[in-house]
């Protein structure tokens, strides 16, 4: 049974659990210490296969040997263009073990973006997942003279390919096996050479404006940060985690791969991005880190399932979540939960809440971590009512992930928590910008000294670009991105993200962009949740054929209007959204309008849909 009033199972771990001052040093110490224990699992042909530390070490050693045999030098860069799979981690650790620099490329990127990222990072070796990703690289190979070899993880469909540039991961491992047999100490020597202050990884920021910038992180920064994470969102070797966000994103790279490398928590890789819900249900992770979009999806999944359920089930859920809600309110207010309420909760948990948690896949979860985008406080309360505390962290690529985090003992929904104890966070008085200082802050942007200089204040604090406030307890609250703040024609400052986040809480709305800079009133571009709106249309006999006709149906327009009205009632008059339009194309991660984490790109959307926006002001 869950006891949301008792956070004692989430204890910060201040001492080091693994020695090492570089990522490869940590890894090889972990292999030596944990040997036969399981580190990773991946589902292959319907079966979960385990990767012990020893087996991972063997593979990494072979890949590293292969890279050295191919002439890969310390400080050379290798990029990885793949979905989140075990091989991603193997390639990454091999590159770092060779003293190289590892860079991730989003598998949804198009060939020109792949070209830019390889060029900018001066990639010598490119790891690709399969034929699809390989084709992207081959399309731009002529323009990448520095690219020496492409390593393919999965050779399905490529048996007849004979290209001197291309080698399979199996061949590379074979090469490495031979090389290591002849030079038994070569990889170890490379590992020993790596210095904490060496550049370890590049993380390109998605760049909603202009070209992506490669944020540089040193080994020291990464190792410092994962040790720090253990004081914030501690996990142990007993924990089961999921690994499914893109590894090129700082959240999964640090919070997933490296944090788990440090703590020994198991990483379970999903089959593919579409099977996340099923895989989470199968694994029932004990800690789960995800972005708000995933939490919203789980929530709306439950909401929809409930609408299909019988009266009795609906009533039971209503009662149970009510009890959970009362417990959550007490917990959030810092008040003790009385014995009677505890008893009620035990019954609610037994009869309903445990089943809801199992349905989502969080029944074993000790706590949930959310980050990378703002989350609706309602959602945090809902998960707490289910019995699982959700801890919001806030940070960015440049801070190596989390820089603030919610303590489990004092959750304040809507806040991002106090500064993590491993760095300092302050609010600049004039602009209200949050600024960060600490060893976790990045080394700068690759090849962009000017952009790097602009990222820091004169006294050396990182400008995050987020505007916020801090309360008496030292808890921070983000109001918006600095550059997103809207100043209406009436001169009123408005922070669009608060409205947008409220909207996103609706099961029918996936994302929204509020517009109104130098305009007489606010409007919104709304992306509907296809599944749920289709269901709504179906239940209410709204005829539609394809996606576009769905968005045009008057009933759907009315539905979204009612969702907007709901939020409008909560805000001041000038902050109300007067008109909106629904995007009538179904967007996927490949589309330029979305970031790889499936958020609408504000600037791009505003430019692309300028005529529709103008129409709302006509």
């Amino acid at each position, binding site marked *: 049974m869950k006891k949301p009033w008792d956070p004692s199972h989430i204890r910060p771990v201040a001492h080091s659990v693994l020695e090492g001052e570089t990522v490869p040093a940590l890894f090889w110490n972990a292999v030596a210490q944990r040997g036969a224990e399981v580190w990773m699992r991946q589902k292959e042909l319907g079966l979960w296969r385990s990767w012990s530390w020893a087996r991972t070490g063997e593979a990494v050693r072979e890949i590293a040997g292969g890279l050295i045999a191919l002439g890969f030098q310390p400080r050379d860069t290798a990029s990885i263009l793949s979905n989140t799979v075990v091989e991603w981690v193997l390639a990454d650790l091999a590159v770092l073990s060779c003293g190289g620099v590892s860079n991730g490329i989003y598998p949804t990127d198009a060939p020109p973006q792949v070209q830019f990222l390889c060029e900018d990072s001066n990639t010598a070796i490119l790891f690709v997942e*399969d*034929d*699809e990703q*390989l*084709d992207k690289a*081959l*399309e731009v190979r002529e323009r990448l003279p520095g690219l020496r070899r492409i390593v393919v993880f999965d050779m*399905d*469909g490529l048996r*007849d*390919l004979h290209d001197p540039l291309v080698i399979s991961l199996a061949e590379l491992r074979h090469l490495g096996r031979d090389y290591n047999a002849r030079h038994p100490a070569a990889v170890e020597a490379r590992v020993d050479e790596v210095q904490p202050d060496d550049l370890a990884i590049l993380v390109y920021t998605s760049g909603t404006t202009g070209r992506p910038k490669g944020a540089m992180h040193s080994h020291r920064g990464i190792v410092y940060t994962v040790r720090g994470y253990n004081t914030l969102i501690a996990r142990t070797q007993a924990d089961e985690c999921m690994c499914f966000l893109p590894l090129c994103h700082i959240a999964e790279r640090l919070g997933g791969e490296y944090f788990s490398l440090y703590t020994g928590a198991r990483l379970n890789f999903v089959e593919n991005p579409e099977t996340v819900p099923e895989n989470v249900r199968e694994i029932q992770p004990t800690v789960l880190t995800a972005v708000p979009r995933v939490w919203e999806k789980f929530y709306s999944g439950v909401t929809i399932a409930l609408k299909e359920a019988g009266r009795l089930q609906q009533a039971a859920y209503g009662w149970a979540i009510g009890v959970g809600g009362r417990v959550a309110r007490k917990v959030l207010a810092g008040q003790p939960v009385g014995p009677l309420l505890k008893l009620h909760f035990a019954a609610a948990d037994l009869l309903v809440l445990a089943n809801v948690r199992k349905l989502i896949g969080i029944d074993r979860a000790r706590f949930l971590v959310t980050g990378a985008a703002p989350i609706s406080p309602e959602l945090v309360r809902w998960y707490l009512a289910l019995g699982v505390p959700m801890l919001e962290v806030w940070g960015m690529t440049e801070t190596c992930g989390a820089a603030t985090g919610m303590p489990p003992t004092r959750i304040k929904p809507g806040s991002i928590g106090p500064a993590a104890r491993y760095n300092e966070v302050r609010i600049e008085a004039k602009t209200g910008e949050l600024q960060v200082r600490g060893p976790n802050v990045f080394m700068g942007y690759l090849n962009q000294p000017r952009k790097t200089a602009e990222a820091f204040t004169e006294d050396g604090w990182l400008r995050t670009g987020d505007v916020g406030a801090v309360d008496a307890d030292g808890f921070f609250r983000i109001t918006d991105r600095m550059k997103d703040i809207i100043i209406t024609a009436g001169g009123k400052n408005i922070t669009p993200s608060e409205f947008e986040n409220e909207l996103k809480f609706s099961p029918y709305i996936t994302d929204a962009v509020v517009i109104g800079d130098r305009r007489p009133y606010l409007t919104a571009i709304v992306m509907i949740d296809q599944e749920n709106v*289709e269901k709504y*249309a*179906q239940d209410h*006999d*709204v*005829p*539609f*054929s*394809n*996606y*576009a006709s769905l968005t045009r149906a008057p009933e759907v327009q009315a539905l979204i209007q009612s969702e907007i009205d709901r939020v409008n009632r909560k805000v001041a008059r000038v902050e109300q959204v007067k008109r909106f339009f629904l995007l*009538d*194309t*179904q967007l*996927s991660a*490949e589309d330029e309008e979305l970031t790889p984490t499936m958020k609408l790109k504000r600037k791009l959307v505003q430019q692309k849909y300028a005529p529709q926006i103008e129409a709302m002001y006509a």
Partner: protein
Amino acid sequence: MSANPPAVSDLPVLRLSNVESAYGPIKAIRGVSLQVRRGEIATVLGANGAGKTTILKTISGILDPRKGSIAFKGEDITARDPAWIVQEGLCHVPEGREVFPLLSVRENLLMGAYTRRDRDGVARDLELVHGYFPVLRERAAQEAGLLSGGQQQMLAIARALMAAPHLMLLDEPSLGLSPKLTREIFEIVVRINRERGTTILLVEQNAAMALATADYGYVLENGRIVMEDTCTRLRQKEDIREFYLGLKEAGVRGERRWKKKKTWR
């Protein structure tokens, strides 16, 4: 963004709104809305198991929908008795022909006219179908089960025509036929449509053939319509070309195995 299909004429011969049908717990179509205009050939494309046949069965009353409504010539025919629907002028040519194997060709054709009382009209229509399918006259006395697959398909279409329908539902007439026979049958389908004015709703896996024959098309995936447009425009769409017509760029290596993501735009 796709250009929107032209507004549908106010009174289509057939209109489905939000039709949902299931086999036990398995939903085969999950909310289909479509219309067929008078005198046109409309087609529903889709892979195996997309729900094409289920749509036709639901229209002709063999299967009752869980939800939604079907209107034929402005009248609600949802879940009505199939026999009654036939009399209203809606004929279903089922998948796999389903001719009566032990009856002669001629008897099969007369079965098609079972609901009719106008003997002169029946005789006229018998002449008409013999005009479309001369082979059926030659084999009039033969048991239908002894016909070749193509001939059986012709018989099935002819049998439906004998009911003098306003709307004919054709379920995969190309099934199991050679490309040449398929072409012949489709030519006759077009002739029937143009000469007799019979409205046709055609369900096909042979997308190239269906798109060349029909005026308006719907694409069905997993029980839902993902795309609709005139067939001329559908043929130009990238997703249709790649996933239904097998035309795709070969890619840099000269062969491409992986599939692009469908976007249905």
